[in-house]
């Protein structure tokens, strides 16, 4: 499917299959078209061309509620004038479900997210994490086939983010429905996803399991965006080596030469920042014992090497 806004193409010929019950993360820098893709899935944007199928049913022309998807909005978009219970029961109310039944079902959802005690509070009286769970309950109350989450963790503080992340994964596993999660954080994608879809400029740059995408980046962009890689220009073209697989050798040895910029203690080891001959920024993770054996000083010259099996040749030339 393709989405054009006026003259600019936001999402270009996106072709993606997500297996049922998958936790899929659309990952990419801002402006890469991941949110637009999600909104097209949800039915809040109309695609300029192409089709959207859910369970092999064409849903492109259907309004959001008829698609069997539910969306959890960035910063949640809870109705400020309704209690948690009424927020969760909102979509049932729109469908004309009787009050007693919709409240019972909404209470059930609140129980699932462990917020039953706060059912009568207004959203403004809840913490960020609690609001997030109300939004989740609201999205799940109609038993959607797919839940679409737009940057669900970005409004939370870092401490809460980790906990909520674990909860999201647990809900997805327990409910067994498809989650499509938009994020710009590779940590989030690696931690949560069964399928990572890395996007760039409205196209899919690479997709696969978190391990595939992280361990074997296809392009320099993928390697740089996922992090933990050194992109090195070799005679046979660009290649990437994971920072923890980059080995420091004495000067003159190894495949490329570099100068030590600085050494940072990371707790579990040391991160050695390096400058390449053309000003490239590299990094090598060195174990405590290894560094103690051979201390490094800033400005020192070193060689960089790696096991041949750790070298990933990249598709792009620059």
């Amino acid at each position, binding site marked *: 499917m393709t989405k054009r806004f006026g003259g600019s193409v936001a999402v270009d010929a996106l072709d993606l299959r997500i297996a049922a019950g998958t936790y899929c993360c659309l990952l990419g820098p801002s402006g890469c078209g991941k949110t637009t893709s999600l909104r097209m899935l*949800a*039915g*809040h944007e109309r695609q300029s061309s192409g089709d959207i199928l859910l369970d092999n049913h064409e849903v492109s022309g259907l*309004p*959001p*509620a*008829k698609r069997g998807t*539910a*969306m959890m*909005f*960035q*910063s949640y*978009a*809870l*109705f*400020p*004038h309704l209690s948690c219970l009424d927020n969760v029961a*909102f*979509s049932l*109310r*729109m*469908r004309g479900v009787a009050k007693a039944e919709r409240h019972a079902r909404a209470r059930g959802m609140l129980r699932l997210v462990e917020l039953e005690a706060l059912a009568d509070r207004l959203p403004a009286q809840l913490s960020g994490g609690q609001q997030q769970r109300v939004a989740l309950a*609201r999205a799940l109350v*109609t038993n959607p086939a797919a839940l679409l989450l737009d940057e669900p963790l970005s409004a939370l503080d870092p401490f809460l983010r980790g906990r909520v992340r674990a909860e999201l994964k647990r809900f997805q596993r327990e409910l067994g429905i498809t989650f499509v999660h938009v994020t710009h954080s590779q940590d989030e994608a690696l931690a949560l996803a069964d399928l990572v879809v890395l996007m760039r400029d409205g196209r899919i740059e690479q997709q696969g399991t978190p391990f595939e995408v992280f361990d074997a980046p296809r392009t320099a962009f993928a390697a740089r965006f996922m992090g933990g890689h050194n992109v090195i220009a070799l005679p046979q073209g660009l290649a990437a080596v994971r920072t923890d697989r980059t080995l420091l050798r004495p000067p003159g040895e190894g495949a490329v030469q570099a100068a030590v910029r600085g050494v940072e203690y990371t707790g579990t080891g040391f991160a050695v920042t390096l400058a390449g001959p053309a000003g490239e920024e590299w990094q090598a993770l060195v174990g405590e014992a290894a560094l103690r054996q051979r201390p490094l000083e800033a400005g020192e010259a070193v060689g960089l090497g790696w096991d041949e099996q750790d070298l990933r040749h990249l598709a792009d030339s620059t």
Partner: protein
Amino acid sequence: MSSSPPDRRPIGRPVAPLLQAAPLALVLLLFFVFPLLATAVVSLWNYTEYSLVPDVTQRNYVEMFEGCSNLSDGLCTTFRTYLSTLRLCAMVWAFTTLFGFAISYFLAFHVRSDTMRMALFLVCTAPFLTSNVIRMISWLPLLGREGVVNQFLVGTGLVDQPQDWLLFSDFSVVLAFVHLYTLFVTVPVFNSMMRIDRRLLEAAQDAGASGWQTLWHVVIPLTKPGLVIGSIFVIVLVMGDFVTIGVMGGQQIASIGKVIQVQMSYLQFPAAAAQAVVLLGLVLLVIAVMTRLIDIRREL
């Protein structure tokens, strides 16, 4: 030895804040509290054909409600006047609210560019560009017996003869009020609407709400503070009006403002003051009920 405390400001008599608040307090005292008190005091005075007599008498209030306890002869003049005023007020309120809400909705949710929004908003203020008198006189050639509207209606054969209800009637009074006061509803309602997070509308749509359901369950509840503020403006303005009702109603329609004006012209100041105090009480009561329904302080 003990040294003097580092903070030497006198405790308990901070003068600066009082001085800062003084100008506004003075203005309010002089132009708000004093006239109100004067009105209340004068409403207890006595009067003759040619003089005011300082006194404490219930005469003005008693005369105002004379015969009102006896409902068998129909309503007394005061009650009938209040009823007529309230009826006008209710009609004007209904129309200004409806139009104000519709205009705000269009401006807030359908107009995309801010420039266009501002331009259209300025167009809404057009009724205020001319003076009140000219504005009302302008209705005459439009709505009169030989007016443009009647000529058009007769000319196209929609009616057989010129319609009299167009001018000097409830219709023309309500029309003039609505023309003028819709803006007073539009502004606060628009303000409330602009604060609504657009994602809430999408969330409602995502939950399967139709356009009307979104309007009823999301937009209107979140616009209530603006609606209440606008309603207060309209009710206060219409309840106290005598010029528009006088001119547009051909001096035929009873209103409290008109009664007060007439009493003033006969120099019955104490009677007029008593009317004003009762009117003030009634309007305050209406506002109290409305603010009880919605906590507008939260929005201001």
